[in-house]
């Protein structure tokens, strides 16, 4: 039966959900007196209108593919790690510290600042991981609590230890030696995109090419079989949270040393906030696959970047894009939608 499909079924399903999300968004806009046609036109032109816009869309996609990876690796291990948000805040803090306060030779500085962010993210992921292993605390509750604690902790650190003496609204900027090179003059895309893609690809190879990766996926797909096969469940939990934390930390780093013009963290965390939650939708549309997540991130990057022109031209608040994200997530949660589609096609 599978052979009759021309496109791979996951791709079709993802495209259908996006269509449902956009339709629901149009209904919402119509209900509040906006013109959906004008809004979506602006959204599309905003995202793809010029080559510079395409590059900007890719810049928006960079952190999303990483926070999506956090959620995907969790799901692959049977965990709902929705802590990318907090892990990303701490990653941004770790990167800001090394990039702005420490002097290192060029090259080494970029690597050190990136690694510091990733390690901070992984360290923060240890809180829900250990609570799960030691006490069996459900990760939905612990990661959300950790997110809020991380928000207040990071704001405190950003203002009190990393603050820019000349500007109250942000931290010290990354030193020039710690900045990823900007790829073109007219977009904020930097070389950090290559690091992000390489990290996603590396995790893909790790999960599908090594014994530890196989055990992680087995632990998520069939916990009983994994137990009989002698897989250590606690190791799977820790590993999945560590990978997730590294990815989220890298996402945070990418917004500090890989995104002009600020090169720093806003005191409100405004330049990283919500990227972690957005990653959940990206991961699900990417079918919880590290490489699928890259494709889905481009799509959500387009929504995020195009949303700005939509707000400007059609007056529709760009945050509506996040509501579409939510509708897409709900739709993807419902297997009966796909069962119905399949039945219809067979008929």
């Amino acid at each position, binding site marked *: 039966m599978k052979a009759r499909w021309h496109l791979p079924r996951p791709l079709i399903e993802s495209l259908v959900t996006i269509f449902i999300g956009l339709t629901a968004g149009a209904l919402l806009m119509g209900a509040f007196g906006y013109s959906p046609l004008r809004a979506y036109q602006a959204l599309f032109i905003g995202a793809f209108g010029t080559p510079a816009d395409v590059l900007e869309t890719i810049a928006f996609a960079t952190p999303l593919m990483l926070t999506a990876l956090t959620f995907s690796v969790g799901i692959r291990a049977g965990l709902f790690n929705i802590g990318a948000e907090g892990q990303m805040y701490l990653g941004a803090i770790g990167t800001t510290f090394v990039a702005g306060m420490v002097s290192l030779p060029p090259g080494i500085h970029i690597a050190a600042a990136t690694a510091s962010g990733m390690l901070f993210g992984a360290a923060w992921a240890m809180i829900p991981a250990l609570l799960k292993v030691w006490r069996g605390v459900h990760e939905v509750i612990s990661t959300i609590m950790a997110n*809020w604690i991380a928000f207040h902790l990071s704001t405190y650190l950003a203002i009190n230890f990393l603050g820019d003496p000349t500007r109250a609204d942000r931290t010290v900027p990354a030193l020039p030696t710690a900045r990823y090179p900007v790829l073109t003059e007219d977009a904020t895309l930097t070389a950090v995109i290559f690091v992000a893609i390489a990290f996603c690809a590396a995790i893909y190879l790790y999960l599908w090419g090594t014994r530890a990766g196989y055990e992680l996926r087995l632990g998520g797909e069939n916990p009983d079989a994994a137990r009989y096969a002698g897989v250590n469940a606690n190791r799977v939990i820790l590993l999945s949270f560590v990978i997730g934390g590294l990815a989220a930390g890298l996402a945070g780093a990418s917004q500090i040393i890989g995104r002009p013009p600020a090169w720093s963290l806003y005191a409100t965390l405004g330049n990283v906030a919500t990227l972690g939650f957005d990653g959940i*939708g990206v991961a699900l549309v990417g079918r919880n696959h590290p490489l699928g997540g890259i494709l889905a991130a481009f799509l959500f990057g387009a929504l995020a970047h195009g949303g700005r022109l939509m707000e400007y031209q059609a007056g529709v608040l760009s945050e509506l894009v996040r509501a579409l994200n939510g509708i897409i997530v709900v739709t993807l949660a419902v297997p009966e939608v796909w069962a119905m589609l399949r039945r219809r096609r067979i008929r």
Partner: protein
Amino acid sequence: MTPLALAAVGECVNEKAGVVNIGLEGIFMITSVTGVWTAEVFGNGAMGLLGGALAGAVLGFALGVISVYGRADQIIAGMGLNIFALGFVPFLLISLWAFPGIHIFPNELMVPRWITPFGQVSPVTVFAVLVAFLAHLLLHRTVLGFRIRAVGERPEAVDVAGLRVDHLRLLTSTLGGALAGIGGAFLPLGWFGAVVKEISAGRGFIALACVVFAGLEPLLALGAAMLFGFADGFASAVAVTPGVKERIPFYFVSMIPYVTTLVVVALVIGQRRFPRTIGRPYARE
């Protein structure tokens, strides 16, 4: 404490029936807006609570339909509702009141408080306590409560007995949504005097922690809501206490409710038992 108690008690009954609603946070956020909007339309705070309850019931019903008939992954569907609220609430705020991020409503729309010899108390708080006791009686002393518990443990037995598994679960998820909706509307109308897009600040998840703490018993959930509500109030009190507020940074005080929740849940968990079919859709063999 009041919104936590309302949402947690409703979710206790819902989870007894085997349905999990992770979207309480989203329901809090959306109903805080619909609550204020109805209050303004009718010029009455109590009507606002009703508006919150209605919107909450609709959301709870929708999640119920998705879970029962759509056989959805309930955690993902609930997270979807939370993400939806994250974008929908700022959109609603600006669409309804043409002002970004915050709306301050006239003070006379606040739900009035009762003045007692022991201090002021909101009728909604009394209602929440009452609801917890009623939910306890419902679950343990009525036929309907017995059926709700049975549908979480052995839905196939309930089905064979000729009762509707789907209707029972829809009932509890709608009820849970309505109670959370009253709580969501109470946040601005009983406490803050304004709606902001971050109004809920994780309270929906703290309500879930209450449910876990309580092992799905409404009276224990009420106790947990009091405990976590106290941590919340304690944080607000410390933040303005002279002598302390200068020494302890505000950011650390703000963490108190979340740290308390984490610690308490870590301490009590493991001794709790949940219904056999929790979070799983029911299908006839």
